[in-house]
């Protein structure tokens, strides 16, 4: 198995779990990102909170970029820096399918995989 990185994956998963717990405990809502994006675009209720959550998703990696070197050494994190070389049509088709599919089924990876399975649900 190439590039197997179970520890950083588990650590990241625990952080995602903590975020979902904190969000649910305080706001009473489940942090499924596709739902938050859809609500931020189409619904007025909790719009500012939803937009702030999405802003947090953008700010986190910037913080990580600055804390990366000392953190990565201390926690022996693998380097996940990347580049995207896909063609524009491929990215557009992928984006359309991801947006359409997640909302048709009612949940994306975070909603379905993390939240639904914690509640022994088949779907959100």
């Amino acid at each position, binding site marked *: *198995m*190439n*590039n*197997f990185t*179970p520890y950083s*994956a*588990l650590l*990241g*998963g*625990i*952080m*995602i*779990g*903590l975020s979902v*717990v*904190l969000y649910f*405990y*305080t706001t*009473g*809502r*489940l942090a499924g990102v*596709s739902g938050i*994006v*859809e609500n931020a675009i189409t619904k007025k209720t*909790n719009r500012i*909170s939803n937009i702030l*959550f*999405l802003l*947090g*998703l*953008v700010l*986190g*990696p*910037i913080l*990580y*970029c600055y804390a990366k070197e000392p953190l990565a050494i201390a926690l022996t994190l693998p380097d*996940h*820096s*990347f580049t*995207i070389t*896909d063609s*524009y049509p491929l*990215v557009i*088709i*992928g*984006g*359309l*399918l*991801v*947006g*359409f*599919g997640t*909302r*048709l*089924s009612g949940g994306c*990876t*975070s909603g379905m995989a993390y*939240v639904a*399975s914690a509640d022994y*649900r088949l779907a959100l």
Partner: protein
Amino acid sequence: MNDKVISLLCGVIFSLGLVVSGMTNPSKVIGFLSITHNWDASLMFVMGGAILIFAPFFYFLKNKEVSTLGMKIELPSKQEIDKKLVIGSALFGVGWGLVGLCPGPSISALTSPGISGFAMFDPIILIFLFSMAIGMLVNQNLVQKTIQNKN
């Protein structure tokens, strides 16, 4: 702390988890989805870690009526396995496999470390996000409304 501060904080923690785990890295995701060829099973541990933390909390919290900030606990009603779920999940899977980005990571990928080591701000990710938003709007305005009218 109000729900706006909490939302921002939760977004930050969530995205740090995404970056640390490798979920924002499309080639890592493609490696995870290619189960028949040089399978990299790492991302299974992301799901494991998240469920490990969330499941016990959820068990105790789900029967409460209001959250600690006094907001109504909003749980979706149990959904049956229907055509929408199966077709939607399959289409999502195709899109995820094509590019290697799903909703959360696609937003965080915008500022995730690129090969230079710093936030990449790659316009191709904006194109992905824009297409994703269009896909969501098409579902809501065409498909969901048609289904509602049928019923």
